[in-house]
């Protein structure tokens, strides 16, 4: 069965064979080749000839969780510095090189990694690898560059948080309220004073500590030959020296026993908002996959229970947003995490009355097993979304999972087993997971009050 489907997907142009396999339930898996260079660099390759493009993604195992305590926001500021110049590429030259070769690029800072990626015409693979290796080799930046990016990042915080109604709600706020351990509960975007305090020495030291090949993964997805690509990675990254490994920080969270309630005032907002979050089960455990399906059942899509209860039946809000890891997805993190949901509402409705409706929904899944139809629907939604992670965004979604699983699990091929892990989840496991992880005591509620 599986073999037939694989052939159907890869060996023959898909559209020729769809009629013979469209009746079957679709399944999707991708080729994965995994190597480790002598200097510790992890390399994951996945060919996809759908379009003549290639994604080169470099992920460093340093997220904002573990940035220095007196330098909040530094992991993200540093991400900006990676575009400010290296030995062979001056300021703006990295970006110009990618654009002039017909590509797009970006970088981002998340809980447990900082990533850099380019999507280019396939024949520019070598150009991208050369450029990424150049900046992994070392930075060449000046005080002017740093001052400039301190200005840019402070403007980023202003446009997304300080000058924006509901800015930071709940994605930046909730971890600060729900978590106890500083690594999980500080302001990841950074205090403006901390951003101003950063020095070139901080930049240097951060680079030396975290931006080494043995703390990184390179993922390549697209139209290329794996043997040639691996040779190019070795050519450009092979002689980079590895760094001493850091002792991993203790980022664990204690079990939460009692519900926590907070409120914040947003003087730019004119309607109240409400968010609630629960601590997730341990990553990759059976309960974690069950929680992935509970997310689908409770908050993803208009068929979800919270949408039906809060929007359609009670008419308290126009929509409920939520998910696991609001700065990514349920796969690309490595530590404690929250499942969060949020909504806007009117001033004549109290947060307590909304939470009473939420409690009804949550208590239902903590009391009764979900019916098979609901479970099946959750699984279909999950698979459909997973296929887009594996193939969407020109391969950048696949590269993201490959690099994350290389860094966190030393096993990028895991991306092909996710679907089966979700299929193993039973209604009974969902009930058990809800009973432990959707406990009232495991919850943090944050009310946003509008106006000053």
């Amino acid at each position: 069965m599986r073999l037939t489907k694989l052939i159907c997907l890869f060996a023959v142009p898909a559209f020729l064979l769809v009629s013979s396999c469209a009746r079957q339930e679709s399944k999707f898996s991708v080729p994965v080749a995994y190597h480790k260079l002598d200097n510790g660099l992890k390399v994951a390759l996945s060919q996809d000839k759908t379009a003549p493009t290639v994604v080169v993604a470099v992920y460093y195992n340093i997220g904002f969780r573990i940035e220095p305590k007196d330098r909040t926001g530094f992991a993200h500021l540093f991400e900006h510095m990676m575009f400010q110049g290296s030995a062979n590429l001056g300021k703006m030259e990295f970006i110009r090189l990618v654009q002039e070769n017909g590509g797009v690029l970006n970088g981002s800072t998340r809980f447990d990694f900082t990533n850099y990626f380019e999507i280019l015409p396939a024949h520019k693979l070598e150009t991208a690898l050369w450029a990424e290796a150049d900046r992994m080799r070392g930075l060449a930046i000046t005080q002017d560059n740093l001052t400039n990016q301190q200005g840019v990042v402070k403007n980023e915080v202003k446009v997304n948080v300080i000058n924006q109604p509901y800015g930071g709600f709940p994605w930046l706020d909730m971890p600060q309220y729900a978590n106890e351990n500083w690594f999980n509960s500080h302001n990841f975007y950074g205090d403006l004073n901390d951003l101003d305090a950063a020095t070139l020495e901080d930049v240097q030291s951060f680079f030396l500590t975290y931006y080494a090949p043995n703390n990184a993964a390179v993922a390549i997805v697209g139209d290329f030959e794996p043997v040639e690509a691996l040779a190019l990675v070795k050519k450009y990254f092979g002689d980079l020296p590895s760094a001493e490994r850091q002792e991993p920080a203790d980022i664990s969270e204690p079990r939460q026993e009692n519900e926590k309630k907070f409120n914040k005032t947003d003087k730019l907002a004119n309607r109240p908002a409400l968010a609630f979050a629960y601590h997730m089960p341990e990553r990759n455990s059976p309960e974690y996959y069950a929680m992935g399906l509970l997310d689908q059942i409770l908050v993803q899509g208009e068929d979800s229970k919270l949408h039906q209860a809060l929007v359609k039946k009670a008419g308290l809000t126009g929509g409920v947003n939520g998910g696991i890891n609001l700065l990514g997805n349920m796969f690309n993190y490595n530590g404690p995490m929250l499942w969060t949901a949020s909504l806007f509402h009117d001033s004549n409705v109290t947060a307590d009355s909304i939470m009473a409706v939420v409690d009804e929904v949550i208590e239902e899944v903590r009391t009764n097993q979900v019916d098979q139809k609901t479970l099946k629907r959750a699984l279909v939604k999950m698979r459909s979304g997973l296929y887009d992670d594996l193939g969407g965004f020109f391969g950048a979604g696949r590269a993201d999972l490959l690099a994350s699983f290389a860094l966190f699990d030393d096993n990028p091929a895991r991306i092909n087993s996710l679907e089966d892990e979700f299929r193993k989840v039973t209604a009974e496991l969902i009930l058990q997971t809800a009973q432990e992880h959707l406990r009232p005591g495991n919850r943090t509620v944050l009310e946003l009050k509008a106006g000053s």
Partner: protein
Amino acid sequence: MQNRVILVFFCLSLVLSGTSALAQKETPPEGGEPKDFTLPQKQSFVLNNGLKATLVPYGVLPKVYVRIIVRVGNVNEAADEVWLADLTGDLMKEGTQSLGAEEVAQQAAAMGGEVNISVGQDRTNISGDVLSESGPDLVKLLGNIIQNPLLPESEVERLKTDMVRQLSIEKTQPQSIALEKFRKVLYADHPYGRVFPTEEMLKKYTHDRVAAFYKANFGAARTQVFISGRFDARKMESAVRQTFRDWDAGPEAITKTPSPKSERVIYLIDRPGAAQSTLYIGLPVIDPSHEDYVSLQVTNSLLGGSFTSRITSNIREDKGYTYSPYSQVSSRYRDAYWLQVADVTTGVTGPSLREIFYEIDRLQDEPPSAAELNGIQNYLAGTFVLRNSSRTGIVGQLAFLDLHGLDDSYLTEYVKNVHAVTPAEVRETGRKYIRDDEMTIVIAGDKEKIYRQISNYGRVVE
């Protein structure tokens, strides 16, 4: 570890020691031979009632995207009907003659997708993205929603309450209120000038007005079905034919072409205490059906429409005044405007205006170097491939052609036309269309702190 330290300091000294060191820099490797890119093949047909359909097989993912576009949008609203098109779209999701709202949501979810209805200026989009085997069922479900919506009266008040809340929230966002003003100035009483309704207006909408709007604006003759992804073409075609063959042709699409106007005036929206000033600067330009349109796109990308563009390089990467500035050519049917947007730190509002206009003037004074232009042309050629390399992107491109009445040559000749633009033409395009002396400038910011910074750049109106 030791090696690395030395290496990094060596790099720093390279930069500090000036041009002799720069000469020793490595040249980036060119890469291999370019691979061919061909636009995906499509198949089109028209039903007797005028409904058009286009199928584009694409990719290996077992998913199929269906987007049904009806030529009705905010442009069809009267002055006291702003967002009535949106309310119609919302109410269409509340069930059909044969299915309740929850059933609609559950059916779509069981296919691995959702029913999305979005209303734009010119078009209403009803779409879904599901697992391949459910493609025909999705066509039937979306077809049912479009042709037989229940439009239940019982849900109207709730949806209106949601809209009042949404309106109230959007009007606190500096970017939204700046856009509202910008469009009001350009389009005056044309529907494109009406971004937001008033709360009073929303409260007057009734079930009957929604039903009348639906009846006046929905029908096969103004509808096009796009399907892209991995699917059985025969089954999908047959699902489209069966689902839509009995639908009435309905009313012809109504087009209302605006006559936008702009003059060099600063519209100041006071936001006391704002940490940033939100700038919206632009003017009407040619629309996509004009022969200079590709040249305008190239010029825009070079001026402010890409990361390496002049305005972004200047006010972000050189000055650090802002995080996410961009310029764009925003188009509707037989209409477009050029717009530069930036959220800049309050204290540098005046200097930001100075630098933006400096870059616009520079573009008009001298042609770009061949190297700078070539870089932008390569960027547009590369992103053209990306725009045509996803199932939603492909449909987006074809829908763009359809709206603007362009033929396939727009796509097949696009890369060639981009590369044909010369440095002198970029300067001419700048002079002809990006005329700074006619630009409308909207600023949402702290009046007390910025008034004196901005008053040199035009007459200020509050």
